[in-house]
């Protein structure tokens, strides 16, 4: 097995990871990035492996960032899944050429975000997916999730997906946003003039969608073999879903539903970093010192969405700060690190305020967790219904981990990555507590399923 000794290992090659890599490499540290994608870039700077002309400035921006990183001498391990990080910081990964190990002096976790999925009747039908998945299909080779796509959920990301779909010639036929545009959203936008241009562009995209609703929610996906229609209902001002006023949009072949993002805390949780909970930041996130990205665990740093959902601008800035700090803590001091730090911090704070404000304003409606019916499957891997989970909670298990023990919800192949957020929200609703109190299932080794032959090769004594 190959072993790479390095100063700083960065897990995740999105905007945060690449920015961290550049800052650390420029300071003189040896840097290795481990990234699951065919090419680095993450979701935001996703590169099309077919080499098609860039769909957006994001793609060319990412391409430039990757070129800069390579020029700076950073080693990029693409197509590699990290399956473990041991307490001594040794990283076990499995790549296209088999298992390898990285032995770093410090780790920067830039693992990104995952769509927040809420189970509802019909959500397991083929053709129903997350906006993030729809965006990925479009960015990787220009494929659309369907010819007649309905985009639904909440948050500005829906507009970004609408824009991408329009660019590949498949603009959505309907946009169902749960939040009504209100004074709060307008006031928030008014306070951040730097974002007006982007907002205007996205709103222009939205205006081209024939059926636009604000204050409506998808209550059911309909179809037998795959999704062919969707039931939607208005949300009353008191937050209650007015099922009596529901309508059906028929003749669709794809439904993208998402409720924003949650931080991917699997690696930081495995390393026992301290985590905090904030709904506006996507739920559980890795707590860091904002000026350095230092976590509660020595030699472990975090940057980007894993430190709280805030989008690509804070991801780049927090990445740069974590890169600078990790390098400096190892004795690699570039030119004027204090000034570089001060500049990034000065930009990071307002960018995060903007994002957290949006996170609060576009918080999913409380009644969202009531959409699932008794026979709705909550955990797809183990086919556990809401009835099963409710019975376990009733019988005294109380929390997400208890529901898992008694029903296997979250015990299957995805280990709760897909359903964990939704089950926490539903459990909180059933037991009259908060999603924070309902907790989450701690990740364990391995972070992703990995063949036993790989595990054996990776755990046999290796020569460093």
């Amino acid at each position: 097995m190959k072993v790479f000794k390095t100063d700083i290992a960065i897990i995740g090659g999105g905007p945060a990871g690449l920015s961290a890599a550049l800052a650390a490499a420029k300071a003189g540290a040896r840097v290795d990035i481990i990234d699951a994608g065919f090419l680095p870039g993450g979701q935001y700077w996703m590169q099309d492996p077919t080499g098609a002309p860039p769909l957006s400035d994001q793609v060319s921006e990412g391409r430039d960032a990757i070129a800069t990183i390579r020029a700076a001498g950073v080693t990029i391990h693409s197509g590699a899944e990290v399956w473990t990080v041991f307490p001594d910081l040794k990283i076990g990964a499995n790549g296209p050429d088999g298992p390898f190990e990285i032995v770093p002096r410090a780790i920067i976790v830039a693992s990104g975000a995952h769509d927040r999925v809420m189970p509802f009747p019909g959500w397991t039908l083929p053709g129903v997916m997350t906006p993030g998945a729809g965006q990925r299909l479009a960015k990787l080779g220009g494929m659309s999730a369907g010819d007649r796509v309905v985009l639904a959920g909440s948050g500005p990301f829906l507009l970004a997906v609408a824009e991408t779909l329009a660019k590949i010639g498949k603009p959505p036929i309907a946009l169902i946003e749960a939040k009504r545009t209100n004074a709060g959203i307008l006031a928030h936008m008014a306070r951040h003039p730097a974002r007006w241009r982007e907002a205007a562009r996205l709103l222009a995209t939205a205006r081209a969608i024939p059926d636009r609703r604000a204050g409506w929610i998808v209550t059911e996906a309909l179809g037998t073999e795959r999704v062919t229609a969707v039931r939607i209902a208005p949300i009353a001002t008191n937050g209650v879903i007015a099922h009596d006023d529901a309508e059906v949009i028929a003749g669709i072949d794809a439904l993208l539903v998402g409720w924003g993002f949650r931080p991917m805390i699997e690696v930081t949780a495995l390393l026992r970093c301290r985590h905090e909970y904030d709904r506006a930041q996507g739920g559980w996130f890795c707590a860091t010192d904002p000026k350095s990205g230092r976590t509660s665990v020595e030699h472990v740093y975090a940057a980007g969405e894993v430190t709280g959902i805030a989008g690509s601008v804070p991801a780049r800035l927090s990445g740069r700060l974590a890169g600078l700090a990790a390098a400096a803590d190892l004795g690699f001091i570039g030119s004027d690190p204090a000034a570089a730090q001060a500049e990034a911090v000065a930009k990071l704070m307002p960018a995060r305020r903007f994002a957290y404000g949006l996170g609060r304003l576009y918080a999913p409606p409380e009644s969202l967790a009531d959409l699932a019916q008794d026979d709705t499957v909550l955990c797809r891997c183990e086919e556990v219904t809401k009835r099963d989970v409710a019975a376990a909670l009733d019988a005294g298990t109380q929390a997400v981990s208890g529901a898992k023990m008694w029903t296997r919800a979250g015990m299957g192949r995805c280990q709760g990555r897909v359903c964990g957020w939704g089950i926490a929200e539903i459990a909180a609703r059933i037991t009259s507590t908060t999603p924070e109190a309902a907790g989450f299932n701690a990740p364990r080794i391995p972070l992703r399923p990995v063949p036993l032959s790989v595990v054996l090769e990776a755990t046999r004594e290796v020569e460093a």
Partner: protein
Amino acid sequence: MVAGADVIVVGAGVVGAAVAEALSRTGRSVHVVEQGLPGGAVSGASLACIGTHMNDEEELPFLKWCCDEWAAFDAHTPTFEYDRCGQLRFLKQESELNSARHWIDVERNAGLAPELLDPAEVRRIEPLLTGPIHSATWSPNSAVVNPFLAVRMLLETAQAQGVRLTSRAPATKLRLKGDRVIGVETSAGPIDGDHVVIAGGPWTAKLAATAGVDLPIVPRKAQCLATVSQPRSIRTVVGACKAEGGVDAGYTQIQQAMSGQILFNTVLEGGVTAHGSPDAVPEVDRAFIRDSVETLLFLFPSFAEIELLRSWVRYEAVTPDDRFLTGPVGPDGLYIAAGDGGVGFCRSVGMGRIIADQIEGRPSPFRTDLYDPARFERRQAA
């Protein structure tokens, strides 16, 4: 203030649940307090083998009773994936034969029916066990259960008889009046009780110490691995022959859960005594992963490309002679049932019966001296 009870059971693992269930049959009012979630600490992480094979010679009659009791629960409430699948214990080399024959003799004398099988006979029972073993013992009466659902079944059976359960309420202190226990302090408030049974696994000694009782129970790290779900690939519980000495002597248990996940662990000699705190559970060790995967693939070479899905760690409660501490201890009204040594699942129902008999003042059908919490002091005095 929580309403009082005749008996407070501290801990809703399988032992606490079994104690509560046994007591509920006496008509006494019982209140179970659990610091976390039922079965959520040690019990749920168990591989929950119900059997008599290669276990403890002196405990054999007790173990037989426990196996029958579990079968009776399954006949009455078949909700916990009880599967009487039998158990194979593989031998790697001829030098282990003496030990295997010894156990077969002991168990046959007790009316059980284990036998020694050659590799071809083993494969008739376990077709994918194609690794180069020397032979294996076969004990047809062993069963496995889903540990979470077994705890749930015991608790729900008890609750149907009026037992109360309070989860997420750590018991912090025993309450005493003179030389008698009168209840416990919990994070949910004090609870009055004429008797208190501590079935707190590795946390038992800490609570007992609040009444000045010093118990020789220490926590020991125990680890396990699971693969992603597979079609039916393993039919039995597969373990290593309990051998004296030998290069590879250690503990192995491999089985396939009803979910299809293959659960497995191997702890080689010398790797079992890592102490630590059950309050800060770490990850599995690298050497443990290696030994477990190596053993699994030695026995089942065709599993090499199956994916590992999950690992977990728990702290089991260990006593100096690897037997439970079960019975009255310290001030009047205080009982304990703890010290599973990693093999408590099967025994839990018997421990429930012992405690219920003691509180009721009934004679026990078992050799309770084996579990007497004061046995070490007596030995020292003698």
